[in-house]
């Protein structure tokens, strides 16, 4: 039985990896692109959509009960266990 909170930690770890790669990508874009409206629009679009997704997910996860557990049984599939 795996606490749901561990999956949240794994999700945060994935976000950290994404954040590092995104930061590098945006810095390359800002450093080597030419000063034009298109550069600003595309970068703002990328950052805006990313922020929106994180905001929506974060808002949803604020209402989750992370003390719940996930009982993963391979032959039967995922079973749900109520908190003790």
């Amino acid at each position, binding site marked *: 039985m795996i606490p*749901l909170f561990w*999956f*949240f930690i*794994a*999700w945060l770890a*994935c*976000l950290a990896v*994404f954040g590092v*790669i*995104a930061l*590098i*990508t945006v810095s*390359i*874009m*800002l*450093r*080597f*692109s*030419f*000063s*034009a409206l*298109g*550069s600003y629009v*595309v970068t703002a679009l*990328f950052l805006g*959509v*990313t922020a929106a*997704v*994180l905001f929506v*997910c974060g808002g*949803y*996860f604020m209402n*989750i*009960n992370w003390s*719940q*557990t*996930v009982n993963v049984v391979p032959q039967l599939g*995922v079973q*749900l266990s109520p908190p003790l």
Partner: protein
Amino acid sequence: MIDIYHLPDALPDEQLVFSLRRHPITISGTILSGILLVLLPVFGAGILWAVHPEITSDPVLFPLIIMAVSVFFLFAWLFLFQSFIDYYLDMWIVTTRRILNIEQHGMFARTVSELRLYRIQDVTSTVDGALHTFLDFGDVEIETAAEKTHFVFEDIKHPNLVSKRILELSEQDRRLHVVDMAEDEGTAGSAKKTLTTG
């Protein structure tokens, strides 16, 4: 960011003539694939909700799905952005004095080649294919007397007009900057002389 109208190490009297990229149609396939990849979780969620509508009220499974879908979406979105950057940062800049060929290879590799206009010997434009003909895009190949003998502008708009204009600029640069040409020839001549007498 680089100001295209004030390039670093600008030559005297240098003015921007063209800033060229590949035709957007060349990246349309990649962008379309990226958009489909990004929308895949949305379609998946719709199908899942249609088949199992009770899943949205599950206190454990639905958060897991949200986590997996959000990670997939964000990395797909990042892939789309990186694909666009790989296209967007490739550029050919033609000024009244030189041509700059800027190529981005992935995230961490970048090649910048520079060619003085008076070194241009021959310019050839090629439009090959039905799509290229209808949308008027193709290649411009530049033969030079420089160390790098071959420049290619790939899949640019209006290649015939661009090649014609480059030839005009090359002639103009040759007429106006005879001193630069003489200096180059003088340097080559003295190096040859040293080899002969040494």
